[in-house]
């Protein structure tokens, strides 16, 4: 028993410094746990803070009117609380944003991961990340003072063309804002696809394009979906660009040349005005906020499901 090699280890573990090391380890563990708890608690706090005024709101306005009404004039003398115009405005701007961001972002990612040399990639990726850091208010003014006048000048489609405030410019510029997110995350996903697969596909006589579309993109689908969902979340939650460029009037329409107010733009506008605590205007803010929260939550759940479904595990 005396020759048991484990004796050595045991005596080390009970040696000098052991108790102080254990104390330090314990402290680190506690600090980290506190950080984790704090973030969970904050989230719960936000949900509760949203929920209380929202519940109060729904004691005054029926959820059916809120969710199916087509008129949104909560601050008028004879108020209407149909949130649909705000929801469609969010959907319209998001649609145009994705129309720009997905093809360009994916194209950029495919170029960087499949075609560009190492040097190009090294220069491009940080550039993209800088683009992602431009404050959104700058994008908003870009939409209002540059893109809208440009679109009005070159408009050739039937109709009057975009108005001063319109969903189209806001959506398109929002798309530009999101490109780096889509490109960077998709590029990460595509670069993670093992080169073995590319070589295998090339050896079967695939062209570079076929390798990208039939092997790399399907293999990276999970990451590309995650990037897309993050893009959608950012578009739905984006406030500054739509507040500056899309206008401040609730408008139930799918025509992107018209001004319209998104959910976020309403919250920003209403929060800037004086809404006495407990007033219906104050509670409206929270009701729209809760709706936005629920929409984003559902999207996140769907995206986690999708990402799991398409995840490929390489050894």
């Amino acid at each position, binding site marked *: 028993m005396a020759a048991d090699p484990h004796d050595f280890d045991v005596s080390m573990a009970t040696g000098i410094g052991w108790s102080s090391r254990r104390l330090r380890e314990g402290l680190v563990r506690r600090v980290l746990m506190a950080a984790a708890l704090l973030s969970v608690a904050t989230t719960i706090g936000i949900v509760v803070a949203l929920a209380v005024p929202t519940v109060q709101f729904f004691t005054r306005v029926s959820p059916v009117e809120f969710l199916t009404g087509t008129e949104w004039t909560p601050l008028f003398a004879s108020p209407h609380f149909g949130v649909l115009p705000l929801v469609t405005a969010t959907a319209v701007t998001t649609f145009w944003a994705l129309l720009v961001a997905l093809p360009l972002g994916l194209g950029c990612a495919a170029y960087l991961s499949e075609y560009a*040399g190492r040097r190009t990639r090294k220069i491009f990726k940080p550039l993209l990340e800088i683009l992602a850091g431009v404050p959104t208010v700058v994008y908003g003014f870009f939409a209002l003072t540059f893109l809208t006048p440009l679109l009005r000048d070159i408009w050739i489609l039937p109709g009057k063309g975009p108005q001063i405030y319109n969903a189209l410019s806001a959506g398109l510029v929002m798309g530009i804002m999101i490109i780096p997110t889509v490109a960077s995350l998709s590029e990460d996903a595509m670069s993670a696809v093992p080169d*073995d*697969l590319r070589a*295998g596909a090339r*050896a079967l*006589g695939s062209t570079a394009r*076929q390798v990208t579309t*039939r092997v790399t993109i399907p293999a990276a689908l999970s990451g590309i979906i995650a990037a897309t969902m993050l893009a959608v979340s950012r578009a739905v939650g984006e406030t500054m660009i739509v507040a500056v460029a899309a206008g401040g009037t609730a408008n139930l329409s799918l025509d992107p040349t018209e001004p319209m107010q998104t959910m976020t733009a309403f919250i920003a506008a209403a929060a800037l005005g004086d809404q006495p605590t407990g007033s219906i205007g104050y509670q409206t803010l929270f009701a729209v906020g809760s709706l936005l929260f629920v929409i984003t939550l559902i999207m996140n759940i769907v995206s986690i499901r999708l990402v799991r479904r398409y995840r490929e*595990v390489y050894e």
Partner: protein
Amino acid sequence: MSDADEPMADPSHELADQDRPAAAEAPPLAGRIPRATGRTVPDAPEEIVINVADVAIYYGSFCAVGGLTVQFGRREITALIGPSGCGKSTALRAFNRMNDLIPGARLTGSVSYRGQDLYGPRVDPITVRRRIGMVFQKPNPFPKSIYDNVAYGPRVTGMKVPNMDDVVEEALTSAALWDEVKDKLRQHAFGLSGGQQQRLCIARTIAVRPDVVLMDEPCSALDPISTAKIEYMMTELADEYTIIIVTHNMQQAARISDRTAFFTTEVDDATGRRSGLMVEFDRTAKIFSTPSDQRTEDYISGKFG
């Protein structure tokens, strides 16, 4: 089995770039006669499919392998053996222009495929790879179903197939995998064992009906039973295909190949780096009994004990 029905100038072997031909006229894969063991190998290949003359391959200015002069005969198995780093994989990749994908890789000398310069100006590497397929050391199935893995090649090459199911079944049968997977063709390829994955990769390669199959240490990641299955399958495939296999396993080379090329490494006096060099090419029986080069003999006897 008659060779007369497929003349040398078969249009399906045309490599020029305009019309990438689907190899639809290749003979059916099923109903082959297993390769007889202990068959006699003629002194020189009767019909040369790939002729390699005085080839050297460089990565930038570094000569990875030189002195390559080999003739790969139709329906023969040729093994490339030699110590690690002697350029076997590099040489193999030169035979279907996979080296084109490595920046800085270049080649001197001549490689011709059925009388055409493989590196000629009008030759399309995509077409080359459709005629000369490749199986890699590590099984690399696509993250798709078993069926879609096999159907991948025919689909991307636009091969005109009357019935894809038949193509998939034939290829899997030839790769000795059909019985194991016929009930789960729609399942994900990653669910297969390593040996099954490698046979799937072989099925995927022969599904496009290539003329030549290159294999880079196809069994090195596999257990002995999977290896035995693949070896047997290769000898069967050799009734249809010209096979070139890189192997570290000399018993394997001795068991299955008709001819063997032996490579070694030598220190380049100018750069001080180790370059690969092809030393000897002959019938496998001769290489393993009475090699004409001392270096071959040393390597072979050293390895055997």
